[in-house]
């Protein structure tokens, strides 16, 4: 039998006919359309029971109530909690991105010890028992040598039970060196003490004010409690209230304001005092609450004559008078301060000057005014009974110098930490515990901070994330993230009320992490003696429940506790702090003819939690493009330097040098450059690391001589073609 062409064709035709009469082509056609419409590799979220769990966001000091949508045990969305006194259903971009922090790749998944060189990133996973044993042994060693005071701790905050446990641990251990990440809160607390004579903070009744004079406070850029402020800004618009933003740069807040008053960087205090002088001069004031004004009036008028202030600030004399009249003419005017998000302490002079305006308008502790809020005092634990070793350590001076000598009023001077460790301190630091803070990125003059860290023999990081500070640590003891743990969140952040939020575990811990409170209690137990005795609780939850006492039930039920009536710190405003010299920018004018000022953006500058991929995606490509970071330059300045839009340039300051791209921006004065805070990470993941420049590499702390806090508002700089 010979298979010829015809037979073959016949076979093929037969095959085709048979195929057409079989389900094969039709079924394949159907399947391939299903396949191509739903690629099998496209992730499909599993179905399940949908529930909402209420909790409190603690990614920033805002204290918003959140409602987390869950499908079975998976959190799938974070929303603002409707009816919450802080944010009533709204949320910010950081709060919204919280799930990327919970599930993202930047988490530290287990306790680890360093096995490579510092910063090399070589770690070995260890058990929690081993981690606690290492920590206990190290701390016991140091203490037994009578050097307990050489151990320090840095926390992101000092309010709430977890920071209080760290502080208690330090006390029982015998070290005076508990520190808090610097922020405007430092100077605010000191100002309240100086102006009102008691411990507390300010609160602003922004919702009921009818004229806002903001000295650079980024009310839609993350100042105060960010979501509350967004809502307030919308309310102001609705009520047609005049909002004046005084700031050298056209920020989002300035753009949102009714009026933007640009001024020379760093002269906010002069403008505030200039306005105060007009109020005094024209007798447009309410002096009932201000004591000691009589004799001071003449000094004020002499030092802050409108013309003179106009020269210093670059604001026209007419505008100054206008602002004064607008402020005095309103029923409930309110002046705000704290640049951007309020991440840098700022000077006492500026803070006191702005608070003085509030006092002169008679709006202290009144509706729509500024409140002197006492500190929350719900943590009432018995005093620690210290043993001899601890008592000896506690009488040693602090490493940062706070609380003594010329820094007597400062609680923490974390900005002085690097200098102190690098040789300026009273004794070397032997161990450092870091929780909820990322000093290796967030403190100014990062090079110097890193050099200081390199000198500290033993560093423990409790961070949940692989941040720059964790990279420098010897021992990682990762905390749960806020969605996995119980914690009280006392809400300060400019609220004119006392509130406590409760964070509750929304999902079970995703990794082998442990609550910092538990780790502290366990370590104290392991150390035994008076340290163990200072921690009488079985676990953190017991501690929290006992501490919150009668508030616990209502917090569990509603998630937030609001103090009905708060007695203000005091009703009288004493004049203080305003005669200090102005804080100047570092660097000399001849070598550095320009000024570099940092600014904050709501999508960036999130502190130690870093920015989630979702946030980075929301940053304009005039801020970062690829890995290039931009600076804002006035077209006039750029022309003088021969630079065009998008061009690369070399930016130099007395503290460092960086490659940047130029973004021409009319909203910045000639001679001033602006750069966003929060970029230039070297840690976290590929979404964040290596993008832009960390402005802290270019700027150093400038000490306010009257407080010791960092009051740097900028630094001198020069710009050249790269």
């Amino acid at each position, binding site marked *: 039998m010979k298979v010829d062409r015809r037979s073959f064709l*016949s076979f093929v035709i037969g*095959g*085709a006919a048979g195929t057409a009469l079989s389900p094969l082509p039709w079924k394949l056609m*159907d399947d391939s359309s299903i*396949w191509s419409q739903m690629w099998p590799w496209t992730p499909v979220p599993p179905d399940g029971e*949908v529930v909402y769990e209420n909790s409190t966001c603690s990614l920033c000091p805002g204290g918003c109530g959140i409602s987390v949508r869950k499908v079975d045990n998976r959190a799938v969305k974070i929303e603002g909690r409707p009816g919450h006194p802080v944010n009533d259903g709204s949320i910010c971009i950081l709060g919204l991105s919280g799930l990327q922090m919970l599930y993202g790749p930047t988490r530290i998944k287990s306790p680890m010890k360093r096995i490579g060189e510092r910063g090399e990133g070589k770690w070995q996973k260890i058990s929690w028992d081993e981690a606690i044993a290492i920590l206990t042994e190290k701390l016991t060693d140091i203490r037994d040598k009578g050097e307990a005071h050489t151990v320090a701790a840095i926390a992101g905050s000092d309010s709430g039970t977890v920071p209080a446990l760290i502080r208690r641990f330090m006390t029982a251990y015998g070290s005076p060196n508990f520190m808090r990440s610097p922020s405007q809160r430092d100077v605010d607390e000191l100002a309240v003490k100086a102006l009102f004579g008691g411990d507390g903070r300010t609160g602003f009744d922004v919702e009921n004010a009818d004229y806002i004079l903001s000295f650079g406070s980024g009310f839609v850029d993350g100042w105060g409690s960010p979501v509350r402020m967004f809502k307030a800004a919308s309310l102001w618009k609705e009520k047609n209230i005049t909002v004046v933003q005084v700031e050298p740069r056209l920020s989002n807040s300035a753009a949102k304001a009714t009026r933007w008053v640009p001024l020379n960087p760093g002269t906010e205090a002069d403008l505030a005092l200039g306005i105060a002088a007009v109020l005094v001069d024209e007798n447009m004031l309410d002096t009932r609450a201000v004591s000691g004004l009589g004799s001071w009036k003449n000094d004020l008028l002499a030092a802050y004559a409108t013309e003179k202030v106009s020269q210093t600030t670059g604001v026209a004399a007419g505008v100054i008078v206008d602002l004064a009249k607008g402020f005095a003419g309103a029923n409930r005017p309110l002046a705000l301060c704290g640049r951007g998000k309020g991440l840098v302490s700022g000077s006492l002079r500026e803070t006191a000057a702005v608070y003085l305006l509030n006092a002169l308008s008679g709006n202290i502790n009144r509706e729509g005014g500024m409140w002197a809020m006492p500190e929350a005092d719900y943590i009432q634990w018995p005093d620690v009974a210290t043993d001899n070793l601890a008592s000896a350590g506690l009488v040693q001076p602090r490493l940062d110098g706070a609380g003594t000598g010329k820094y007597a009023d400062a609680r923490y001077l974390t900005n002085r930490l690097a200098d102190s460790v690098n040789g300026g301190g009273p004794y070397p630091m032997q161990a450092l515990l870091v929780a909820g803070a990322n000093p290796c990125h967030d403190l100014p003059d990062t090079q110097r901070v890193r050099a200081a860290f390199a000198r500290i023999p033993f560093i423990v990081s409790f961070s949940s994330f692989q941040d720059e500070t964790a990279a420098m640590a010897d021992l990682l003891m990762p905390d749960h993230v806020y969605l996995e743990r119980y914690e009280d969140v006392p809400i300060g952040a400019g609220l004119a009320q006392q509130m406590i939020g409760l964070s509750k575990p929304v999902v079970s811990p995703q990794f082998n992490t442990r609550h910092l409170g538990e780790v502290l209690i366990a370590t104290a137990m392991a150390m035994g003696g008076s340290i163990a005795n200072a921690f009488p609780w079985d676990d953190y939850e017991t501690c929290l429940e006992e501490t919150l006492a009668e508030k616990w039930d209502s917090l569990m039920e509603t998630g937030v506790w609001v103090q009905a009536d708060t007695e203000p710190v005091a009703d009288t405003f004493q004049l203080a702090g305003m005669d200090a010299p102005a804080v100047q920018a570092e660097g000399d004018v001849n070598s550095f003819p320009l000024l570099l000022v940092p600014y904050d953006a709501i999508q960036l500058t999130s502190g130690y939690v870093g920015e989630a991929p979702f946030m980075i995606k929301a940053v304009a490509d005039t801020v970062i493009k690829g890995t290039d970071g931009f600076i804002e330059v006035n077209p006039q300045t750029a022309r003088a330097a021969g630079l065009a839009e998008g061009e690369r340039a070399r930016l130099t300051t007395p503290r460092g040098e960086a490659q940047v791209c130029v973004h021409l921006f009319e909203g910045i004065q000639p001679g001033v450059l602006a750069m966003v805070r929060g970029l230039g990470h070297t840690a976290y993941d590929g979404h964040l690391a290596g993008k832009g420049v960390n402005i802290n590499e270019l700027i150093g702390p400038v000490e306010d001589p009257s407080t010791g806090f960092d009051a740097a508002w900028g630094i001198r700089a020069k710009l050249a073609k790269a």
Partner: protein
Amino acid sequence: MSTLDEKAQAGMDDHAAHGGDGKASGAGGFIILFFIIGFAASMVLGWVIFPKLLYSQKQQPLNFNHALHVEEVGEGCQACHYFREDGSFSGIPKLAQCTECHEEPMGDTEDEAIFVEQYVTKDREVPWLSYSRQPDCVFFSHAAHVIGAKMDCVVCHGHIGESEVSRPYEYNRLTGYSRDIWGKNIAGFKRNSWDRMKMDDCAACHKEADAIHDVSVQTQRGHCYVCHK
């Protein structure tokens, strides 16, 4: 005579006309034979081999006896496959639901032992394979059908409630979806309403009841949008 046959005939005529060597009818026979071989081979391929290649099988993690459970729990399917308070359908029960009764082994079957040892004590969800999961592009609400249209589970799921063992889960290698969607019959023929759950099967029923089912509740749009949002 089919077109193909006509062509084959024409070819043969052709051949006869040109060759004329007397073997014409033998060659024609071969040609028909080859046609039949091709035809038969492709039919076998399409009807017998193809389905075997297209589908693969997996066993359920353990055997589940529906009949026994229905008898024990009483309230019918809803006892385990219930509607949640928000109206959503719970689907295949989660471990927590099972352990309400099975904290300790109940009975001494091998499957019970597997269940308790592998899942209950280890607190692991049983990775049940769902026979009836529709492709991801389909929006399906049990509530609309069971509560709204008062349909019986059997209409779509057949008599699974009477099964004593879990049949193997067959899935399409190309799409990854369960064979039950297209139906056991590769040609797509069905005898019972539950034999197949393709779009046409949904559409047929929706068409009958179109007065109430012609717009999507969510999008207010008709036709395709009722199920494809």
